[in-house]
């Protein structure tokens, strides 16, 4: 018997008991919609959390904080030797290392001033890692600097800053902000030190050679000033301390520690060639006792947690499909009982028991798949409605805006596929016994209408 004829048979049989079949399809559709919508909450929350995490971090970035020392159990800061080791590792694209001036740099340009972070960066590695300029060029000598894209934002008029100078977001109002050009301008960096309880300041005039590119993340700001290693050495020579740290008295700190930190980096980041390589690099770093952090690691843990949660939700949803399967079992059993005389006649004239079984399995699959399809379509509608309505409800009830990145329900393609597979499996199982019963219909009893 051809498959197309089997389908025709199934359709004919289903038409005979339309109401019963429709109700069974409805129950299956409800079960599927319940499963999808329930699990979609897990998928939605995962999407929100992952989006939040990945937006704040670069996926291929690995922060290396230090190396565990066997003697004291503490961590030592990283130096050139470590950086070189990282650069030699396979799948490493770049290793950026930064030293921070250990006092807030005070910058003055004309009548405008601001205090901001001063960074000593290794530009070749920064560029390899993706650092770009929006204007100008990199610093060529110690008298040149690169400023962050958002550097002018807090470059306000000299003197004490009052509340009225700032807007609602805490940003310096434009009329109080420096609006002139920066490239080629000289700014004065004032560094201080303490000597015999007195604050002594020194001005280092530097020229702005370039401005960094606007950060890709909307919320990110780069107000730093990037100075050269040579300039840092001049500052260290003035303060007499590593990285320009301001000390009231040298007795307060361990001199050996102070000396050890001289050539160490405050911020080391390893960039992998691609996301797949991150885990391998992290594992290798961990083997060598380096303390690391990567968003991929965190994502792995978050994804594992959500995978467990989603599996739980899908399991609960499957119970609804199992309940619907009782309906399919009932419908199919009644169909076999009602059609037993017809089955008997078909067997008598030469129908293969396998064909009869296949027809009944097809029928239960038909019910299951139509139900799953309807359930999927409905669940997409419910999911859309949930994402649309819940923020409104939250706003009405609590007066709070829902962050736009929060997704309450998300249906990835895999979810309907999982649902259809579960539904199909359950349908086949519930249709199997009635189908087997159909093959065992006794021809003689069926023809005597005794079944």
């Amino acid at each position, binding site marked *: *018997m*051809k498959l197309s*004829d089997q389908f025709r048979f199934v359709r*004919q049989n289903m038409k*005979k008991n339309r109401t019963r079949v429709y109700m069974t399809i409805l129950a299956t559709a409800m079960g599927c919609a319940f499963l999808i919508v329930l699990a979609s909450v897990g998928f939605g929350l995962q999407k929100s959390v992952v989006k939040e995490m990945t937006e704040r971090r670069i996926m291929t970035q690995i922060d290396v904080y230090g190396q565990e020392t066997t003697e004291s159990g503490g961590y030592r800061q990283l130096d050139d030797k470590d950086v070189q080791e990282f650069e030699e590792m396979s799948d490493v694209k770049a290793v950026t290392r930064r030293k921070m001036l250990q006092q807030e740099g005070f910058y003055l340009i004309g009548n405008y001033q601001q205090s901001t972070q001063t960074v000593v960066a290794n530009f070749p590695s920064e560029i390899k890692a993706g650092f770009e300029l929006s204007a100008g060029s990199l610093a060529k000598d110690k008298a040149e600097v690169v400023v962050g894209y958002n550097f002018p934002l807090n470059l306000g008029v000299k003197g004490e800053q009052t509340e009225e100078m700032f807007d609602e977001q805490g940003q310096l109002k434009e009329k109080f902000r420096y609006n002139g050009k920066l490239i080629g301008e000289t700014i004065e960096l004032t560094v201080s030190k303490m000597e015999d309880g007195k604050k002594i300041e020194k001005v280092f005039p530097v020229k702005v050679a370039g401005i960094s590119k606007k950060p890709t993340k909307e919320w990110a700001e780069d107000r730093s000033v990037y100075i050269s290693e040579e300039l840092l050495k001049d500052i260290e020579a003035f303060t007499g301390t590593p990285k320009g740290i301001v000390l009231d008295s040298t007795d307060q700190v361990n001199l050996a520690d102070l000396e050890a930190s001289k050539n160490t980096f405050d911020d080391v980041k390893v960039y992998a060639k691609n996301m797949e390589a991150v885990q391998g690099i992290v594992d290798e770093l961990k083997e060598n006792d380096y303390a690391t952090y990567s968003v991929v690691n965190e994502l792995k843990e978050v994804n594992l947690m959500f995978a467990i949660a989603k599996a739980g939700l899908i399991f609960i949803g499957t119970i609804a499909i199992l309940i619907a399967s009782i309906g399919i079992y009932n419908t199919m059993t009644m169909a076999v009982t009602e059609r037993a005389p*017809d089955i008997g*006649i*078909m*067997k*008598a*004239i*030469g*129908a*293969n*028991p*396998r*064909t009869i079984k296949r027809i009944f399995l097809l029928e239960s699959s038909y019910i299951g798949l139509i139900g799953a399809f309807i359930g999927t379509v409905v669940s997409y509608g419910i999911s859309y409605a949930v994402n649309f309505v819940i923020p409104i409800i939250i706003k009405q009830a609590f007066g709070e805006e829902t962050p736009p990145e929060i997704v309450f329900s998300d249906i990835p393609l895999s979810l309907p596929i999982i649902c259809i597979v579960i539904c199909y499996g359950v349908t086949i199982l519930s249709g199997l016994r009635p189908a087997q019963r159909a093959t065992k219909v006794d*021809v*003689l009893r069926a*023809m005597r209408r005794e079944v």
Partner: protein
Amino acid sequence: MITIKHLSHEFVVGKKGKQTFIPVLKDISFEVKEGEIVTIVGRSGSGKSTLLNLVSGFIHPKEGEIWINGQKVSQMNETKFADFRIKNLGFIFQSFQLIPSMTAFQNVELPLILKGVSETVRKKQTEEMLAKVGLLDYQDHYPGELSGGQQQRVSIARALIVNPPIILADEPTGSLDSETEEDLLKFIKELNTDLGITFLIITHDEKVANIGHRTIELKDGRIIEGVLA
């Protein structure tokens, strides 16, 4: 064509442990040759229907062998017998055994569907067969809308549609009036003469028994007359 060798059968009655065995057929042997019409007669309970059910493969014999068209069918499993049945056997039943929810056309077409014949060929053959039994105009009628004679003709058309070499008939005129009975017997004769179809007919009707080349009489599960041709 059909060879029965030392066929015995018994029915089991009662629950497990308290079963009673009722012998129905006792050491039956006979042969039906190609192109023959053989009728089996006997009183009610003589075992003639059981014999036909054994030959049809609806039940399995306790002892003995059944050979049809050179194949031993008595030990065939259900699946194999189903394939064998659709190629070699046609059935005419006393109560017609048409599927009530199918039209005359669909009932006749059914064996071709089970055989996997394409729709175009099926349509042509079914219409030809319905024309042959004089029911082409009734092709869209459901069995409930046809007379007994018409239903039996649909049943015959369904049996003939796959061109079986053998037709097994169980009281084919049992539900028909005498006029329709005459027509049907004439038709069976024609089929035998024109197409060479072999018939094994179970009947208690003398008229039907007389159309056979040979009649075998059963009594208490044994053949008492007509084994030899």
